[in-house]
């Protein structure tokens, strides 16, 4: 997804959590977790907050947004 990045894979690895465990914790399918990790799907705000809550980190530590203008610099 252009502009939006995430550290989901790193956070999951740091917490020794499988994709299925994370999916169960936030109430989505494993395929959706895979799509988020591969930047193929931007989750809803609610799901994004749930992910941050599971890892006990602020939202911006999970998701980062690069505005298109900052890419040109």
């Amino acid at each position, binding site marked *: 997804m252009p502009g939006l990045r995430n550290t989901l894979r790193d956070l999951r690895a740091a917490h020794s959590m499988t994709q299925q465990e994370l999916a169960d914790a936030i*109430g989505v*399918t*494993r*395929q*959706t977790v895979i*799509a988020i990790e591969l930047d*193929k*799907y931007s*989750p809803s705000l609610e799901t994004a907050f749930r992910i941050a809550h599971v890892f006990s980190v602020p939202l911006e530590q999970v998701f980062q947004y690069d505005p298109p203008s900052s890419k040109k610099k």
Partner: protein
Amino acid sequence: MPSLSYQEKSLYGELVADLAVFVPYFIIMHTHQATLTVSFIAASITILIAAQIFLQAVIAAFTRNRLKDERDRLIRLRGYRAGYITIVTIMLILMSMLWVHSSLKQITPAHMALHFLTVFFAVLMLAEIVKTITQLAAYRRPL
């Protein structure tokens, strides 16, 4: 082979049932146009419903996690939008063709209702197939 969610398996089941009924129906419709009856169309719809129920029951029985999430709902909406565009477009084209044929007296008024039913069923089936393929493609593409 990528791992498939329950929704994807269900969509593949739908597609198989649709094609298994629609392809023979389409071939028979074109080769035996003169002998086409309402009961043939009704039988096709009945077989389609039975095939869908059987396949969906088998898929549900062999899938433990049948969770549906926000991405599934988004993809479902995308599929229905594609199906709606298909219905409107093809219905417009086929109804225009039907009107032209009836104006040229190539279709008798007695057969008009049957032809209308045939066109209606064909459009619904095509829209259903387009909807399912769009949804399956959406599962493999960035949203």
